[in-house]
């Protein structure tokens, strides 16, 4: 057998390189220390924020999730720190506004603040009702703000429904109708106002008086 040595060496080198890349990637996937993928300065800053959150009695899991999301999306270390710091602020504000709520509800409330709600608009949810979760309300609220519904309109609609005892399905159906209207080109604020009138527990439409001599044969919702 006659073989050109350089070709064999090249083939061996290529095989070794591929194996090295595969192993490196595999090892990276099992990294037990996710913060290890940050630069030292960013890591230090993140650890400080985490300590502050723990000290304040705030959940660190949502913050760590933001770190991992940033790493996954290949964000710069400084960007990740800025995002986590901002989210820490939202969590503090949500806790101060809502009081002692679950970690999940606190994270959802922080998402509403991140989407653009004012802290004072969360205050209505401070009053807890036993066995009732505000997760669906917060989720739909955040979406409406993201889709361009005016902040005050979204806040008043969601708050009113919440205070009237609307259930998860009601919130979800409202969101579904509004986003469908927006996708068809309707102004986001108008879409919400129209749909919230049709929603059980929503504002009662103005009653139209029938002409004289005719009986009122249809009750308004």
């Amino acid at each position, binding site marked *: *057998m*006659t*073989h*050109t040595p350089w*070709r*064999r060496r*090249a*083939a061996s080198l*290529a*095989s070794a*390189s*591929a*194996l090295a*890349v*595969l*192993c490196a*990637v*595999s090892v990276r*996937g*099992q990294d037990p220390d*996710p913060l290890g993928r940050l630069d030292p300065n960013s890591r230090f800053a993140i650890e400080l924020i985490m300590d502050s959150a723990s000290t304040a009695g705030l959940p660190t899991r*949502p913050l760590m*999730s*933001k770190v*991992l*999301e*940033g*790493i*996954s*999306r290949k*964000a710069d270390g400084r*960007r990740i720190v800025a*995002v986590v710091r*901002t*989210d820490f602020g939202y969590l503090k504000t949500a806790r101060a506004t809502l009081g002692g709520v*679950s*970690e*999940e509800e606190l*994270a*959802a409330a922080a*998402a509403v603040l*991140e*989407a653009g709600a004012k802290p004072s608009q969360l205050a209505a949810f401070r009053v807890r009702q036993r066995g009732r*979760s505000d*997760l*669906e309300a*917060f*989720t*739909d609220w*955040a*979406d409406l*703000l*993201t889709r361009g519904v005016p902040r005050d309109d979204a806040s008043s609609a969601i708050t009113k429904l919440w205070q009237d005892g609307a259930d*998860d399905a009601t919130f979800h159906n409202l*969101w579904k109708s509004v*986003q469908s209207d927006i996708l068809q080109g309707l102004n986001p604020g108008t879409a919400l106002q129209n749909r919230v009138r049709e929603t059980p527990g929503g504002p009662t439409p103005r009653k139209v008086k029938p002409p004289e001599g005719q009986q009122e044969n249809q009750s308004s919702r």
Partner: protein
Amino acid sequence: MHERKVAILAIGTALLVPAPRELAAQVVSKLEAGSYTVTDGALPVSMLRLAPDFRVDLPHARITAHGSAYVSEQQLQVADGIVSGTFTSPTVYGVRAEMIGNASRAVDDRSLGTDQVDVQTRIHVLFHQRGGMWFGGGVARPWRVAVVSSADIADAGIWGKLGGATLTATFTNFSFTKIAAASDTAVASLSCAAATDGTCERQSRFGDLEGVLHWEGGPLELEAQTGYRFGNGYDVTPDSRRWSSATATIWLNDRIAVIGGGGRQPALPLRGLPARSYGMAGLELSYWPSSRSTVPVSFPRTVLVKSFEVHPAPEGMQKIVIHVGGVETVDVMGDFSDWSPLTLVRRGRDLWELSMPLSPGMHQITVRTDGGAWMAPPGMPTMHDSYGGDVGLLVVSDRSGH
């Protein structure tokens, strides 16, 4: 036999390297059946040909088995079979590594059958998911052919996508030692005149330059390829210097396609197969679209996720159900996975599923197809995330899913 052991070890290593956490298999099968007419210098022969294809996709590995058989004198004769294993690393900064191992057998009426084991590695570089290039090399060891050594293979290629068309160009160089035979060119036979021990071993080398155009539009798929073989008269017979072929596939529905084509194939010295002209027409039973991509790596396409649902599943699990057609892989990622991709399992033509534990609460979730851009799933509330993308907001209550 040293190369043989190395090849088997490499294949084993490629298949045994554990895929990361998102291990989930997808099984795809395909069957072609129809008339196949072949001419390799003699009279044309027509036969009924069956070609089954079986594939198991793991997140970073693929195992395929393909074969063909024909009915001759009311007996089923196996023509060829190949089992392949491919391990692909995730893409890091647009670079992806790939290791491929193949074991194959080809039966030709001129021989009792030839075997080959080969291992190749490739490094892919992707350009914005619209094109890419790769280079690699490997070793192939054939048996029962005139080739008496392992063959060194080096290849490089480039591909690009233009509308519905994908263009691929490859150059593959083969280098091996073979026994000159009477079927070789006259020049090769003359070179053995000086041999005194009755055998004539010589170094052989040739390179194949091949271009492939693949186009898809609605139910129609077209693929055309043409090639040129570089090498001197010792190694390249005149009937293998140039070749071209084309295949058309028309999907009648999502499981059945009419397939037809023909052209010229060059000789494959490593597998002991001569150059031949062929024509074929038949039916293909498969999921649509079948994996016939000419692109060596997956790339994102603009696809429409028709629906995205989450249902409660037994044992506290949640089942994600996605309807999306025309894709090879579907991944989800979110806070529940520590923002690592989880690959869904294909359950039908456009049905993808994944069961996983999801704690009660609000979760952020994104979806992607064919390794493309992450996006918020349709049909659920969304919000902008802090890193310039959109995420879906999934609420899992204590009692049920969304």
